[in-house]
């Protein structure tokens, strides 16, 4: 058992709770930095590309996590912000803007546009936000077709390579550089996110999630805080979209569809709502499931001569896992890990209901 004696209020909001935790994260950092060495050794970078894809998903997941996990607002339209970021990035690069400026700029503009769309709905109940973002997500593909001069419409648009001070980065020809670039962005965002949660702004997000009424009683401006959260969230999604474009190499009107928005939402729930780790765990699961299904299929076909080829199996399986998580482990994978860790840390004093959440009774905000 470890005892952390709190001698000042700062202890509560320190980045790392104790030295051992900091050591573990340093080791993790070393591991992710050293990962490409393994692929250099085996001389095949295919899997590294998949890992990079997972990192990009995790960046988008962090964006949605801030909004849904920490502010408690559901969004079914984050693929739209990814699309905005991606197409803005393509157009800036096409106009000759250097990547180092185009990339953050496209994220910021995606954030501003997203906030402008969401602002009127943010005053209402969360369900309306879900609806508005759902509508936005459905319209995305159509708008991409309408805005053909900038997006290439149905034919699609090729994404130019990244050029940072003369260093050319491409997903296929220089997978290692691309991995490090994405990793750098991801770590930067985690650092920002982690620090944000320690600031008054970040703490007011959590206050709004837990109780809007108490948050307001504490003097938090609900609409402004929600809008801030939405802006940061959409910006992260826009950045992820820009990177996603570089990773895909070619985007069409069907790339950023409703399924992608929903996948993002499912991802953070499986990973664990309200934890930054959750975005990464969820992204790993989303990355693994299609591979696992394909492998399972070929295993059944070769060993038992059973051919399963039912359309929609993948999304149904995904949905089933999700339902299982929501019913039996609402805190997601990270919550499960937290429980296991607490069990051993407190051994033998762990109690069954330690993580039980308080139930709330609903009250409508409608007039009847």
């Amino acid at each position, binding site marked *: 058992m470890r005892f952390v004696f709190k001698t000042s209020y700062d202890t509560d909001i320190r980045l790392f709770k104790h030295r051992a935790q900091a050591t573990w994260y340093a080791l993790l950092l070393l591991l992710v930095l050293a990962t490409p060495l393994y692929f250099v050794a085996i001389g095949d970078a295919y899997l590294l590309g998949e890992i990079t894809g997972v990192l990009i998903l995790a960046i988008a997941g962090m964006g949605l996590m801030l909004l849904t996990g920490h502010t408690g607002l559901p969004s079914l339209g984050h693929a739209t912000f990814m699309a905005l970021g991606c197409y803005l990035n393509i157009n800036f690069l096409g106009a000759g803007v250097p990547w180092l400026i185009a990339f953050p700029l496209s994220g910021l503009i995606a954030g501003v546009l997203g906030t402008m*769309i969401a602002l009127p709905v943010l005053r209402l109940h969360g369900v309306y936000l879900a609806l508005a973002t759902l509508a936005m997500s459905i319209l995305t593909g159509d708008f991409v077709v309408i805005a053909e001069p900038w997006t290439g419409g149905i034919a699609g648009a090729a994404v130019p390579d990244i050029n940072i001070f003369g260093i050319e980065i491409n997903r296929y020809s220089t997978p290692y550089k691309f991995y490090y670039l994405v990793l750098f962005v991801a770590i930067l965002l985690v650092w920002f996110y982690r620090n944000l949660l320690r600031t008054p702004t970040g703490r007011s997000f959590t206050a709004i999630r837990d109780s809007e009424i108490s948050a307001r009683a504490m003097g938090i401006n609900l609409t402004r805080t929600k809008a801030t959260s939405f802006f940061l969230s959409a910006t992260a999604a826009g950045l992820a979209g820009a990177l996603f474009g570089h990773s895909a190499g070619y985007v069409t009107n069907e790339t950023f569809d409703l399924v992608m928005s929903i996948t993002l939402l499912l991802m953070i729930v499986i990973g664990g709502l309200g934890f930054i780790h959750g975005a990464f765990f969820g992204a790993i699961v989303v990355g693994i499931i299609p591979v696992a299904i394909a492998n399972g299929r070929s295993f059944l076909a070769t060993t038992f001569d059973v051919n399963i080829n039912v359309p929609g199996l993948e999304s149904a399986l995904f949905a089933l896992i999700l339902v299982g998580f929501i019913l039996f482990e609402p805190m997601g994978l990270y919550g499960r890990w937290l429980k296991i860790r607490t069990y051993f840390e407190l051994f033998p004093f762990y109690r069954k209901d330690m993580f039980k959440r308080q139930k709330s009774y609903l009250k*409508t905000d409608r007039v009847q």
Partner: protein
Amino acid sequence: MDFVQLIISGLANGCVYGLIALGFVLIYKATEAVNFAQGDFMMLGAFVCIGFTNHEYMGLNFWLAVPLSILVMGAFGYLFNWGILRHMFGQSQTSIVILTIAMGFIIRFAAGAIWSHEPTSLETPYAGQDIRSGGLVLGVDEVLIVIVTAALTLAFFLFFSRTRVGLAMQAASQNQLAAYYMGIPVKRIHSLVWGLSGMVAAVAGVLFASKGAIDPSTGLLGIKAFAAAAIGGFGSLPGALLGGLIIGLVEPLASRYGPPGVSQIAPYAILLLILIFRPGGIFSQTQRKKV
């Protein structure tokens, strides 16, 4: 004449959207939960009826099959709440939204596995029959849709405002804790309203499948019905119908007189506009929480 014909087929379509929207609004009014799988409920109801009626499946008499499938869907809705959603009681709205989306995927998959992904239409005794009057040709199916929808909306409106159970449902959503104190069995009321909304979904499904072919992805129509419910004002029964009618009318008119591609965008564009300028919908029932 052409225009009137267009309006009438739009009305019939709008009524189906309205019926699906009625299903959500019922649930929303009584439990404050939003069922994103309502469209898939409708699709399932249609397929259950097809399973009872069509000759390649059970081949029952249509008029026997319809009440049977309504009962089956009512039981499905009741059990859905009893088996799954009841465990979510007291959890955040967001998890319920995500849960119902996931259930929609599963229902779609199950329907595809049982009844195949081929578009199928319901064999009704009134298929292809018309009512002709003064140059107008009205399909019996379309007229039936309009009549049934109007009747159902009126019935539910009265049910909520006049009956004891309806009042109990309103109470359960207005303040769960207070409802408990008044001796209302909130959880059973929730199951009951889910059963009711399953029945409405079955009716919508039967009407929709008698008008044209359906396949498992028809459930995605639910999203349009969502737009309908939000345009009308979430939580208002006549609003749901009105929203459905607006969308049903706008679609054919936009595809006829507007530039290509507009008809797909129009419903959602209206939804976004309504949410921006009149966020509560036409029959707005929301007010800002005051502290």
